């Protein structure tokens, strides 16, 4: 298996979906069976390779980048095709490959209007390449390219297949279809952040020339320089700020989150799932992979600000959820809250906190992914997402209602299910942050975060009460609603299993991440 370990395996995981997209593109539009088969085939093989990688991964050396390769790519700026996975990226990579397969299966029976499976599948596959690539890139330019590669497919997915309801543009006296507004808003926000992120990358590149013979974009090398105190002072402060802008928009952290509710609500179901499950992770992953280890001193300086924004995100997201009438929008705002916990974990700068962030991301990926699946299926049947009109779903579609109930419980952090660990450990990390950080501030953040978990439970139960319990509204009387179909079950049962499995055996994730995180924290902060 030499070829597999020497970069080919990883490259295949990244680029097979892209090849699949090309194959789909060259399949006649009318031949839907072939399009389905191709997209399923390519994503399943990708998942297979990712699983194989997880089995071959040396967990005893999870802080080492494995299965990697480093080739010349853009000689003139000394940027290389440098890829590899360590314990931090492996769970996210597997998550990405896993959710993509489920998204493809689900869409077989749920083509949003205007149909066109060919375009939809091609975009999904390109998206997969961007997501997988971001998690394995070890060169800043390569990272940037993959980070941006997800923009185009998601833009088209929201813009073409998204919500066609008319809305008024805030601040303007004009009306547009929601999908158009949400698509461009998503694109502009993310590009704004990443344009400054790129400037930050370039600043690091030029600064590195003072310490090594040839200026470099190489992430491990920059981490080595950063942990030896190469980047300090105003320079590093500004660079961290630039990277912060890029990652914080993507996470999204309050107050950069406003694109998220629009994009999630307007996107077609599969788009929402992929956005929530994977795309939101790219930003937080950027903090852990790039900002923290390369600029440790600045990370410490910025940590209180990150913690404050994270807590605002938790509280604000939860309160916003309570004000929603649209089920999908509620789930979207819940993401703001959950990602707040992830960022609170990161802000603590401890190994507990960062482990919490990663397991929190994986858990949020499977839980919120499933929530969006269910919400999509429900609005597919009821043709509305208005919680005031729903209700009594347990009586109308007991299996779907059951899954919704289960997932909501997981989302509110019920012990024994996946969502618990991220929240619990993030609060634990905030209780005793890295030495030198303001303990009072972080403990206040912890208390507020704990209040946030109560609010989370509050809005999730409130949603369940409105949607699942009670009597079905009179308007659905006499209509027949088909409970979950085979495609839905195939897509959802693996997620349910994953939620339970991670909840009961958090070692599934933490076993991979812990050594890598401890090594990161030790190198960066010496403790």
């Amino acid at each position, binding site marked *: 298996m030499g070829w597999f370990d020497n970069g080919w395996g990883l490259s295949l995981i990244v680029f097979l979906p892209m090849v699949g997209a090309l194959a789909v593109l060259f399949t006649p539009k009318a031949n839907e069976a072939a399009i389905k088969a191709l997209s399923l085939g390519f994503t399943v093989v990708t998942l297979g390779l990712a699983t194989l990688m997880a089995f071959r991964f040396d967990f005893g050396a999870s802080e080492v980048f494995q299965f990697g390769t480093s080739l010349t790519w*853009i000689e*003139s700026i000394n940027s290389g095709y440098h890829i590899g996975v360590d314990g931090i990226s492996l769970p996210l990579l597997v998550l990405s490959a896993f959710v993509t397969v489920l998204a493809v299966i689900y869409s077989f029976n749920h083509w949003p209007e205007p149909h066109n499976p060919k375009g939809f599948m091609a975009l999904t596959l390109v998206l997969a390449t961007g997501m997988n690539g971001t998690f394995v890139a070890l060169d800043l330019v390569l990272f940037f390219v993959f980070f941006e590669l997800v923009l185009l497919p998601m*833009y088209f997915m929201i813009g073409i297949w998204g919500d066609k309801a008319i809305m008024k543009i805030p601040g303007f006296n004009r009306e547009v279809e929601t999908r158009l507004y949400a698509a461009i808003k998503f694109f502009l926000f993310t590009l*704004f952040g990443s344009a400054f992120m790129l*400037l930050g990358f370039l600043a690091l590149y030029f600064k590195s020339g003072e310490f090594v013979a040839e200026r470099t974009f190489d992430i491990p090398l920059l981490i080595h320089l950063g942990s030896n105190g190469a980047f300090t002072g105003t320079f590093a402060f500004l660079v961290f700020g630039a990277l912060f802008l890029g990652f914080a928009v993507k996470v999204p952290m309050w107050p950069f989150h406003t694109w998220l509710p629009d994009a999630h609500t307007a996107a077609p179901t599969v788009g929402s799932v992929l956005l929530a499950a994977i795309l939101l992770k790219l930003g937080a992953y950027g903090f852990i992979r790039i900002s923290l280890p390369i600029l440790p001193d600045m990370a410490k300086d910025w940590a209180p600000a990150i913690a404050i924004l994270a807590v605002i995100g938790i509280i604000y997201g939860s309160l916003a959820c309570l004000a929603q009438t649209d089920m999908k929008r509620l789930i979207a705002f819940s993401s703001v809250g959950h990602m707040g916990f992830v960022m609170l974990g990161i802000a603590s700068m401890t190994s507990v906190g960062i482990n919490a962030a990663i397991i929190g991301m994986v858990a949020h990926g499977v839980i919120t992914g499933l929530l969006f699946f269910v919400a999509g299926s429900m609005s597919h049947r009821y043709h509305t997402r208005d919680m005031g009109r729903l209700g009594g779903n347990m009586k109308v579609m007991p299996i779907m209602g059951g899954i919704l109930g289960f997932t909501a419980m997981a989302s509110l952090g019920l012990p024994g299910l996946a969502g618990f660990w991220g929240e619990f450990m993030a609060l634990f990390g905030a209780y005793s942050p890295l030495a030198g950080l303001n303990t009072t501030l972080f403990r206040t953040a912890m208390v507020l975060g704990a209040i946030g978990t109560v609010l989370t439970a509050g809005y999730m139960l409130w949603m369940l009460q409105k949607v699942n319990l009670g009597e079905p509204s009179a308007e659905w009387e006499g209509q027949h609603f088909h409970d979950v179909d085979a495609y839905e079950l195939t897509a959802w049962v693996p997620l349910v299993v994953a939620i339970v499995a991670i909840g009961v055996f958090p070692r599934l994730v933490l076993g991979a991440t812990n050594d890598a995180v401890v090594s990161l924290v030790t190198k960066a902060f010496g403790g």
Partner: protein
Amino acid sequence: MTPDIDYLALAPEITLAVTAVVVLMLDLFLPRSQKYWTAVVAVLGVSFAALPLIALAVSDVGERSMLGGSFVVDDFALVLKGLFVVSGYLVLLMSVSYIESDRYYQGEYYFLMLMSILGSVVLASSRDLITLFIAIELVSQPMYLLAGWRKGDLRSNEASLKYYLLGVLASALMLYGMSFVYGLTGELTLAGIAEAGAGMADDPAFIMALLFMIAGFGFKVSAVPFHFWAPDTYEGAPTPVTAYLSVSSKAAGFVALLVVLYSAFPDAAGVWGPAVWILAALSMTLANLTALRQTNIVRLLAYSSVAQAGFMLVPFAAAATTDQIGLGEAFAATVTYIVIYAFMNLGAFAVVIAGARKTGTGDIEGWGGLGSYAPGIGLLAGAFFFSLAGIPPLAGWIAKLVMFSAAMGAGSGWMVALAAIAAVNAVIALFYYARVVKTIWMDPVPATAPDEQVRTSPVAGSLGLALGLSVVVVVAAGFFPSLVTFFSEATRALAGG
């Protein structure tokens, strides 16, 4: 004494000149129904001009200098000649079906086009002020005529007149500046000026001369505030001519700026750097903001091309505050940007020609739903417009990256500020580029759209070839930027870096 002529070095120019004359002669003798042969000969002639370029590139003679250093064939010249020949070739391909449909002056059209291409190819080798001036005028003069080629159309007349008057003014400014430089240094070759003018950077007359020349070139590259001709001329001229104006003619202006500023005035970088800083910041910001309000696709691309010129000027500003290596990097960054811009912008105009044929309009609104009945054109539009916006994996991102890199590498606060301005502008630009793609893919087909037959009419073969070649470059260079940076790195020697 007869000057020593290296015929291989001159072969591309000779090929183009001979082709131009042959086209003109053929036009005299061909019956009206056979005029398309002029197009065939023109396209073939431009293709043949590429052959000696390849021979020169692989020969191990190195730099070939003639006529007392006035005409030099070095790596820079070869790369830029290659670019001019290829973009000329693409424009000719785009012209064939467009020009044929009007059925007049075909021979003259191709003759003038070839003369302009000849001018640009000479320009890449020009290393003294007179050769440079003649070459740049040879690029522009035929364009004054071609801009008014649709003589029955008032807009076309306006396009031609506006372009002519402002162009002549620009040439006068440029020439005025050049005469001062000659008067002060007593030299015409760029190398001589660099040597003689080494200590003159503080001389007011010298500074004035330099600014006059920059203003003159500013017209050619259509940088703000010298851009006023561009939107009207672009809209009125035949679309292939507009494509040529926005790519080859603009690139010619940049080549002149590059060779003059970097090789004749390296010591005065402290003067021209800040001047270009202002031009760059203004061009990006004003053009992008104006582009947001455009409803006509060609006018939108006109403002877009002004904004892109602003991006290309950014590395020049960086050159003022950097070391010798940084100078070379800034130089290469602009070359990289020009090369990528040429392909993506030509592609965008080819899409405009194809799309206007199918939708029957140049109004963006009228392009609604184009993606549903012409998915191929829709896809290509997405590729070129998002490449112009600099979104990976399309080649535009590497152009933006090297531009940002040159700015950040200079290390001064002013350049970081310019980089930040450029970053904000990249976001603004995305909005109007995305709007075109949005209309094509996400809006319904408007009621005014032409009938089914027009909408699904096939794209002319030559136009299809131009689209295909451009998209291959834009996609390939997006994944493998070295395909472009390899060439631009080779040009760095001219900046001494």
